[in-house]
């Protein structure tokens, strides 16, 4: 009997065991899901309703909080700012890193590993370490209150991860293909542009998704670069809105729920690239 129990694979435990496993997962799901649900429902309440009835469904449902945010120009402007900053950051970081990763993957030259290690070491140094001198430099270049002041540093700090992932992928493409292309009269750039990049499309998609997410959620850099609130991105807008309407809790809740939607929508579309990028980055970095 006991030998028999030991034989059981962990996937086919008894009903009690399976029940307790489910219970753990459900409790965790409540821990994660309830705050989100609380936000969504809270946005449909008035602030007074929210404090008398924090848990239940709204009664009556109050759509005004959401409606007023969606009707305000400032939210859409921030959405636009976040979007084009994310897109331009992604274009810059992927273009620059792909060129470098190509060299690191397919050319042999003295100092290559040292140079690559230097780039890879950048992975350990987040904005927090460099933000102050970065601010001084950006002020020197006149890039404060300029979207480039956010885009270029984000691209620079995104390079290590992007180069590491792309280099790994470029390496896996057989050398025979490059030789054949060059014998056919293809230049290095022609090979890179017309053969390597199209072949590496999954890896390019992965690093692009990572770059978009990082840019989208970046807070510290736009916080110091932008003082003009017409340039604000969504994270800055969230903080500003919270400061303005701190007492009107339901309204703030509606605001953050609306602010969540683009990120969650993007997650729904790009989940696979995101997960493969994060795991590849973590394992190779």
């Amino acid at each position, binding site marked *: 009997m006991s*030998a028999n129990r030991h034989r059981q694979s962990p996937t086919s435990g008894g009903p009690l065991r399976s029940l307790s496993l489910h219970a753990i997962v459900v409790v965790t799901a409540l821990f994660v899901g309830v705050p989100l649900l609380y936000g969504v429902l809270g946005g449909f309440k008035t602030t007074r309703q929210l404090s008398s009835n924090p848990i239940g469904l709204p009664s009556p449902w109050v759509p005004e909080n959401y409606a007023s945010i969606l009707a305000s120009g400032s939210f859409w402007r921030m959405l636009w700012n976040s979007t084009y900053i994310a897109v331009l950051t992604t274009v810059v970081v992927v273009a620059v890193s792909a060129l470098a990763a190509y060299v690191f993957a397919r*050319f042999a030259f003295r100092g290559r590993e040292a140079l690559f290690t230097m780039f890879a070491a950048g992975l350990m*140094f987040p904005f927090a370490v460099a933000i102050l001198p970065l601010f*001084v430099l950006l002020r020197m270049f006149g890039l404060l209150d300029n979207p480039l002041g956010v885009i270029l540093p984000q691209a620079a700090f995104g390079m290590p991860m992007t180069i590491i992932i792309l280099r790994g992928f470029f390496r896996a493409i057989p050398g025979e293909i490059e030789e054949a292309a060059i014998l056919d009269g293809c230049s290095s750039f022609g090979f890179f542009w017309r053969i390597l990049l199209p072949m590496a499309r999954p890896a390019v998609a992965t690093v692009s998704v990572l770059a978009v997410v990082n840019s989208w959620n970046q807070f510290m850099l736009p916080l110091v670069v932008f003082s003009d609130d017409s340039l604000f991105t969504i994270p800055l807008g969230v903080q500003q809105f919270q400061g303005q309407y701190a007492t009107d809790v339901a309204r703030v809740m509606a605001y953050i729920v609306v602010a969540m939607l683009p990120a969650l929508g993007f997650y729904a579309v790009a989940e696979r690239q995101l*997960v493969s990028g994060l795991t590849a980055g973590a394992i190779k970095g």
Partner: protein
Amino acid sequence: MKTTRPRSLRLRGFTTILLFLLPALVLFFGLVVAPILLAFYASVFKWNGMRGLPTDFIGMANFTRLLADEVFLGDLWHGALLIILSVVIQLPLSLGIAMLLNQRIYGRAFFRLLFFAPYMLSEAITAVLFMMILSPTDGLANYILGWFGIDQLDWFADPSTVMMSVFIVMTWKYFGFHMILYIAGRQGIPKELTEAAQIDGATGWNVFRYVTLPLLGPTIRISVFLSVIGAIQLFDLIWIITGGGPSHSSETMAVTMFQFGFKRFQVGYASAISVVMFLISLVFAVLYQRYVMRRDLEGASTVLRDQR
């Protein structure tokens, strides 16, 4: 023919290498390396950060002041506390959930999606959400505690609970990320190994303890590494929720640096904090890779050597 081709390739290579690397080098040196060097330079001056370069050289005074400052020592303690809590509570939780979701559980695709969702939200959104949930007056958390007859907590407003509250928020946001890493690591373990152990009579726990866990070693070491680096640079959450308070009880190095650098205009002193953060990250990364991840990296470098 055989001797000229590599040489022409090498010549072609040299200009290509230069041209292809140039944009990356410019961006990296201009916006990553130069700022770090500038921080080192500014850290030995008394400087209010106004235009031009600092002139009032004071040697190591900023650093001696830093090491004697209780706020900074508090920062170090808070960082260490978050690292300990992450490693002892958050990562085992992520690992456990990852193992559960690896089994045939009803709705596991949904759970995986849900648990990872908070990672997608910015820390700003997370911070504001939890300011309301953990509000001492009419937050959801106190309401739920009321069901169990537990006294209301002041959460972020009380120096004795603020770090615990921050840790709860960090766990909410980040455990799904680590879970995803562990799930990927678990899927990389060949089925034959766990099956063989089961056939040999190992219990579920023993299979986990002696087969799965050791093989997850590299993933766990990476996950710990990322947690530590994350704790060293923690800023957004704290800055938005507490600003480091009440009375510095949740302050981190990045918050102190930001206070002095951008609010009090003691840029020299704030640069010294940046330098210390840099050195802590560097020393940690080097030691960790040298002693903890050595085996994982050895594998990687043999692969490198083979391809060279």
